C-alpha cells in the first residue's frame, strides 16, 4: 500500500535515507590516508618527491605571497627589510638540494606575530619586531620559523588534516576592514600543533647556537611575546601561541641540558638592531593609528617610552591617538570594548566617547604642544593641531597651523635615513591640506 506523503512512516523512511546518505558522505571524506614521510629539508640525501597534495599547498602558499605583495603588506623599506633578509640568511641552514627557498619578509601588521609558509616564505610582523630588544631575539624568532619550514610542519599538518582551514582568506580578515587584525589570523597554512612548536623551539636553539647568538634570549623573546599577546589578545582574534609559559620553561630546560656546553662568551646579543629599533617602533605605532587601535597604540607608546624616553615624537603620536579618538568616537568605543570584553560596544560606551571628543581633542593639543616644546622642529604636530582647529571651527588657527605644517621639506624619493624618516610628509596629506586651506581662506574672506 502506498504510504501517503507526510505520514509518519513516510517521513521516517525519508529521514533514514537522508541520514544514511549523510553518514556515507561523512565517512568517505573522513577516511584517513597514510601520510608520506616528509623528510626535513636539511637531509641532504633525501629525495623530495612532491606529491599532488604538497604541490597544491605550495601553490596556495605562492598565491598568498602574491596577494600579500600585491596589496602592499610586504614592507619594502630597504633598511628594515634588508636587515631581516640578511639576518635570516645568516641563521638559515643549508637546504640547497631541497625544492624550497627560504625568503624573509616584514609584514605591515602591528600584531606581535610571525609565520612561516610551506614554500619557505617567512614573515615577521612589524609589530613583533617592535617589541624586541636586540638582534638575538629577532634571530630567535627567525630561527623558530625557519625550523617550521625545515621540518615541513605545514605540509605534515595538512596531510594529517589537523588544521581546519586550508586556504588563507586575507580579504575576509582585512578588507573593508571590520576586523582589528589581519593577514596572519586565519592563515591555516601557518597553524602548527604543540609538538611541532616544541620541535621548532628546539631546532631554533640549534640554529642560534651555530650562528653564535645568545641562547638566553630565546626564552626572553617568548616572555616578551607572551606579555604582548596577553595585552593584545585577551579577547581578540589575534593568533597567539598556547602554553607559552610551558614553552618558556622547556626552552630553559633545553638550554641547560642539550646546549650546556655552548660557550656564553662572545655570543651575539645586540648586533645591528640598534638603528633598526626606532624605525620599527614608529612604523608599528603608525599602523596602530591607521587601524584605529587606540588602546594598543597607547600601550605601544608606553612601552616605547622606556627606551626612547622623552622623545618628542612619542608625544606627537600620543596626540595623534587622542585626536583619533576625538575624530572617531565610534571606533574608539569599539576598540576599547574589544580590548576589555571581546565584544561590540554598548551604546552607552559609544555615547561616552562621543561626549568625550572635546576632552580628547584637548589632550591631543596638550601632547602636540609637549612635542613641540621638546623639539620645535616636530612640525608634524602642526598638522594635528590644524585638523583639530578646523574641526572646531577655529579658522585662523587652522590656517596658521596648516601653513606651518606645509613648510616641511618634501623628502626626495624613497630615501630613508634614520631620524629623517620621522615626521615624513606624505603627498596625499599635502594635497588634502592645501584644499582645506583654500576652503578656509575662502570662508575667511
Amino acid at each position, binding site marked *: 500500500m502506498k504510504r501517503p506523503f507526510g505520514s509518519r512512516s513516510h517521513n521516517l523512511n525519508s529521514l533514514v535515507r*537522508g*541520514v544514511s546518505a*549523510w553518514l556515507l558522505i561523512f565517512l568517505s571524506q573522513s577516511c584517513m590516508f597514510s601520510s608520506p614521510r616528509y623528510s626535513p629539508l636539511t637531509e641532504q640525501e633525501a629525495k623530495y618527491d612532491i606529491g599532488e597534495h604538497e604541490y597544491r599547498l605550495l601553490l596556495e602558499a605562492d598565491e598568498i605571497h602574491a596577494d600579500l605583495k600585491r596589496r602592499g603588506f610586504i614592507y*619594502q623599506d630597504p633598511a628594515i627589510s634588508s636587515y631581516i633578509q640578511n639576518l635570516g640568511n645568516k641563521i638559515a641552514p643549508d637546504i640547497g638540494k631541497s625544492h624550497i627557498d627560504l625568503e624573509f619578509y616584514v609584514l605591515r601588521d602591528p600584531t606581535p606575530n610571525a609565520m612561516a609558509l610551506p614554500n619557505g616564505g617567512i614573515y615577521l610582523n612589524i609589530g613583533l619586531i617592535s617589541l624586541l630588544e636586540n638582534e638575538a631575539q629577532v634571530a630567535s624568532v627567525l630561527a623558530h620559523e625557519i625550523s617550521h619550514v625545515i621540518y615541513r610542519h605545514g605540509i605534515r599538518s595538512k596531510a594529517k588534516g589537523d588544521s581546519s582551514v586550508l586556504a588563507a582568506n586575507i580579504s575576509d580578515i582585512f*578588507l573593508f576592514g571590520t576586523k582589528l587584525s589581519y593577514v596572519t589570523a586565519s592563515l591555516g597554512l601557518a597553524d602548527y600543533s604543540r609538538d611541532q612548536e616544541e620541535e621548532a623551539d628546539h631546532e631554533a636553539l640549534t640554529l642560534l647556537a651555530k650562528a653564535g647568538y645568545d641562547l638566553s634570549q630565546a626564552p626572553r623573546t617568548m616572555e616578551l611575546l607572551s606579555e604582548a599577546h596577553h595585552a593584545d589578545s585577551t579577547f581578540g582574534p589575534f593568533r597567539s601561541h598556547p602554553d607559552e609559559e610551558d614553552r618558556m620553561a622547556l626552552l630553559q630546560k633545553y638550554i641547560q641540558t642539550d646546549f650546556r656546553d655552548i660557550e656564553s662568551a662572545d655570543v651575539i646579543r645586540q648586533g645591528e638592531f640598534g638603528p633598526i629599533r626606532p624605525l620599527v617602533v614608529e612604523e608599528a605605532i603608525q599602523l596602530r593609528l*591607521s*587601524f584605529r587601535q587606540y588602546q594598543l597604540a597607547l600601550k605601544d607608546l608606553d612601552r616605547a617610552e622606556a627606551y626612547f624616553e622623552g622623545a618628542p615624537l612619542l608625544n606627537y603620536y600620543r596626540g595623534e591617538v587622542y585626536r583619533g579618538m576625538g575624530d572617531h568616537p565610534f571606533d574608539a568605543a569599539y576598540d576599547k570594548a574589544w580590548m576589555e570584553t571581546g565584544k561590540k560596544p554598548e551604546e552607552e560606551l559609544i555615547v561616552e566617547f562621543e561626549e568625550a571628543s572635546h576632552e580628547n581633542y584637548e589632550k591631543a593639543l596638550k601632547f602636540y604642544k609637549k612635542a613641540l616644546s621638546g623639539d620645535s622642529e616636530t612640525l608634524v604636530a602642526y598638522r594635528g593641531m590644524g585638523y583639530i582647529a578646523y574641526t572646531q571651527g577655529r579658522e585662523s588657527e587652522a590656517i596658521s597651523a596648516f601653513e606651518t605644517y606645509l613648510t616641511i621639506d618634501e623628502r626626495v624619493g624613497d630615501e630613508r635615513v634614520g631620524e629623517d624618516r620621522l615626521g615624513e610628509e606624505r603627498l596625499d596629506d599635502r594635497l588634502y591640506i592645501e584644499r582645506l586651506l583654500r576652503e578656509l581662506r575662502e570662508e575667511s574672506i
Partner: protein
Amino acid sequence: MCTGLRVLAIMVTGIIATGCARPHLHQHQDLTEHLLEIDTVVIAPPVVSIEYVAFDSLNERMRKEESIIREALVRVAQRALYDHGYDVVDFDFEQALEDDSEFAFRVELLRHEFGFIRRELNERPDTSDSSMDSFRSSVGSIANTLSEKSGADAILLMHYDGFQKSTGLIVKDATVALVLGALTGIAIASPQNGATVELVMIDGTTGNVLWADVRGAAGLSTESAKISMKDFPDDVDPDWDLVSEETDEVATDTAEQVLD
C-alpha cells in the same frame, strides 16, 4: 507539533533566507553638489573572494573563478559608468601596485577606511549621520593618493564575496533540511552558492563617500553588480561625445554564470 521545533524551524529558515544580504544603499547628503566636480572615475581592482566550502571545513579559494569574476566586474562597472555619463580613466592599476608597494598599501588603507565607515553604518543604522537622508562620511586624505596617481576625480571600489558549497556539504544541508522538514512540515532551501557585492564611489579630492551599495544573491555571477550599478548616480554634466566613443570600446559581454 512541538512548539519548540517549530520555532527552531522558523529560526533556521530565517537564517538561511537572510544568508543573502539585503540591499543597502547610501548616498552623500550633498551628492548633486559633489557630482559637479566628478567627471572621471578610476576603477580600483575589485577585491574578489570566492570560497569553496567543503564538508570537512577544508575550504579553498576558487582562484580561477575569482579571476573571471574580477574581470567581469570591471567590464560591468566600465559599461555602467559610461552609461551614466562618466569617463573611465585608463589607469594600469596592476602595474602601479606591482611597482610601488607604498601605493599598494595606500589602496588597502583606503579600503580599510571605508570598512570603518561600513561598520558604523551597519551597527548604527539609525544615527543621523548614517541615514539615507543625511549620510555624510569621508575616508579623508587617503583618497588623494589614488586620485593624484590616476588623474581621476573619483574612485570606484568593488568587493565581491562568494561561496560555493561542495557536494558533501550540499548533501549535508539537504539532509538537515529533510530532517527539519520531516519534523516541522516546513520546506527549507539552502543556496548552493551565492555572493555579496559591494560598490562604493569616493570623491578623490575630499575623500567623501558619495555612493555605496551592497546586495547579495544566490549564484556566482555579476548580476548583482549590474543591478546595483543601475542605481548609480548620473554625472551631472557629462561630456556625451567622449562617453559615446568610449562605450563602443567596452566589451558588451560579461561572464554570467561562473558555475553551473
